[in-house]
């Protein structure tokens, strides 16, 4: 005999293996966010970076500026999602991945670059959100300076469970 707990959606028969008819099934772990211990929303923070006078960059170099570091100290790498509120989005939130193209203005003066990106990663201790300039080999040497003002909203999720176990 199999024991457990199932909760059916309104009007559905609970005695089913069809997941579409169930609000909850003890055999299926739901994706869930962890609550408490740290905030998950940052609003309108300005970050100033000093790279003045102009700094030379080598062909193929990627320049990275960390924007946020948020410690979670879970001891393992949780699943995650990051929503970024950008001015170019008319007030909307944009879900981004490990390296998303960014067409906004960071106030950065760069002589040539393939792309400007906002990215993030999560370790077993912290979440890091960064801005990067990617310069391809065929663009040659470049210079960058004067990244002086960034205002961004972020909302991030750390999903526990599941952990991204190795």
């Amino acid at each position, binding site marked *: 005999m199999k024991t457990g707990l199932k909760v059916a959606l309104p009007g559905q028969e609970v005695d089913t293996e069809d997941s579409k008819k169930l609000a909850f099934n003890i055999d299926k*772990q739901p994706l*869930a966010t962890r609550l408490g211990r740290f905030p998950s929303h940052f609003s309108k923070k300005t970050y100033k970076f000093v790279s003045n006078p102009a700094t030379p960059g080598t062909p193929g170099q990627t320049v990275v500026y960390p924007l946020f570091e948020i410690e979670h100290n879970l001891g393992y790498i949780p699943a995650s999602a990051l929503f970024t509120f950008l001015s170019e989005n008319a007030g*909307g*939130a944009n*879900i981004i991945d490990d390296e998303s193209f960014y067409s906004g203005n960071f106030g950065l003066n760069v002589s040539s670059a393939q792309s400007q990106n906002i*990215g993030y*990663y999560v*370790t077993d201790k912290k979440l890091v959100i960064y801005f990067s300039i990617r310069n391809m080999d065929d663009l040659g040497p470049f210079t960058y300076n004067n990244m002086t003002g960034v205002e961004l909203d972020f909302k991030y999720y750390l999903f526990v469970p599941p952990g991204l176990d190795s």
Partner: protein
Amino acid sequence: MAKYGVKVGQRGVDVGRAADFQLALSTDWPLLKVHKTGRINAPAFTPQLIVENDLGRLVPFMIFTDGSDSITQPDGSSSRALSTAFFLNEKGLYAHDNFNSINGYYIIFDYDLDQEFISEVDKSVVQPSSNEAEYGVKIPLKGKSMESRDMRDYILHPGMRPMAIHMAGQRTTTAAAPFFDLEHNLGYPPAYLVFEKKQGSPFVANTGNQPYLQVFANRVTAETSNSLRFSGVQALMIGTFYFLLLKDPLIAEDS
């Protein structure tokens, strides 16, 4: 007609007055249930099957790839972040051809994206109690202890907020109207997942001419408290898109 069902509140929340997103469980909506998880080890320049899709239909998924970039992680620590370089069809989950080898982790969810769904809305919000006493419902995974303090060991726990599905379905856009609007009526902008539905096998030879899903990221959403607009940034957004709007608000401050 009398209404029957089950509601479970999060820690410190009066379940009788809780807003939708303050509940750990309700019979009024499905949760985003994990079907399968596992490791990814895909070599460079070899588009390939990661894992078979034993559900046999298009379902939501998330991919987290390992960070190995010495620039972003100078301390050498391992990390993972959401990736869009994968797709899923009715046969399996695949990695695109890639310049570099990809290692990571996948989550495949069990949810029918073809089924239109929208739940009713309760806009009340309760201030959680500061009472730290451990009341509520805990359901551990099979073989795990009820006393575990590791959240990974639980199906349901008052300290977790499951991703409750508020609205789901698909929309098709055209060149004349390269966007879609979703009237969700939540009163706040919610978290979401969007997948683009494509046809064919542009990257992997053995997938045949089948529909497949890609995570749709890095695009604009314009929002009001009761609607979302999805549209392209640099190019017209034309095609078919599946969406999952979650109950979770993007503007609320978390405890």
